[in-house]
């Protein structure tokens, strides 16, 4: 159980209404974080994909997170 500050970019910024949001998570994995985010912001489930980055790198579902990590939502990228 923890309180995580999550950065938002692109369409996720519009969905959460700002550059950052805070969620309470039951557990300490990316997978559990994702469930909390989707519970709080159902709009996130409409995206083509949603990756989570931990400390500036793509994380997989089993990655453990700490409250001090830099965590970000990565909706489908469209650079170039």
């Amino acid at each position, binding site marked *: 159980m923890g309180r995580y500050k999550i950065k938002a*970019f692109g369409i996720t910024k519009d969905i959460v209404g700002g550059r950052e949001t805070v969620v309470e998570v039951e557990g300490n994995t990316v997978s559990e974080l994702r469930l909390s985010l989707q519970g709080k912001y159902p709009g996130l489930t409409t995206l083509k994909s949603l990756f989570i980055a931990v400390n500036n790198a793509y994380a997989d579902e089993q990655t453990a997170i700490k409250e001090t990590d830099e965590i*970000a939502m990565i909706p489908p*990228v*469209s*650079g170039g």
Partner: protein
Amino acid sequence: MIQITEHNINIEEIVKAASRHEAGAVNVFIGTVRNHTKGRNVLRLEYEAYEAMAISEIKKIVDEAILRWSLLGCAISHRVGVLTPGEVAVVVAVSTPHRADSFTACQFIIDTLKQQVPIWKKEVFEGGEEWISATP
């Protein structure tokens, strides 16, 4: 040289940064803002990057390209902020001893950048706006 910038990209500068005297070939890809997509008139694009991660992801792509091809130099610049049609959004320049590798490596870098690097664009067209590729 890897750069995320709010300013106009100077193509000559990126080419110079990628060039090497041992290299005979430089390939450069320039992505520009089109004035229409899917039959819509594009007014502007708004680019946003998760800058620290974007630079780190681009570095990974460049490291892979160095391993796979005989890359001697590489420079990449990506714009963020508001861009209007005709403006340069991204420049990728690579130099190699022989020319075929310069094409292959440059195409690999831009293709992979578009798939993996946390940069987003919102298209503002006549009558609406859309975060590109975000929803099915």
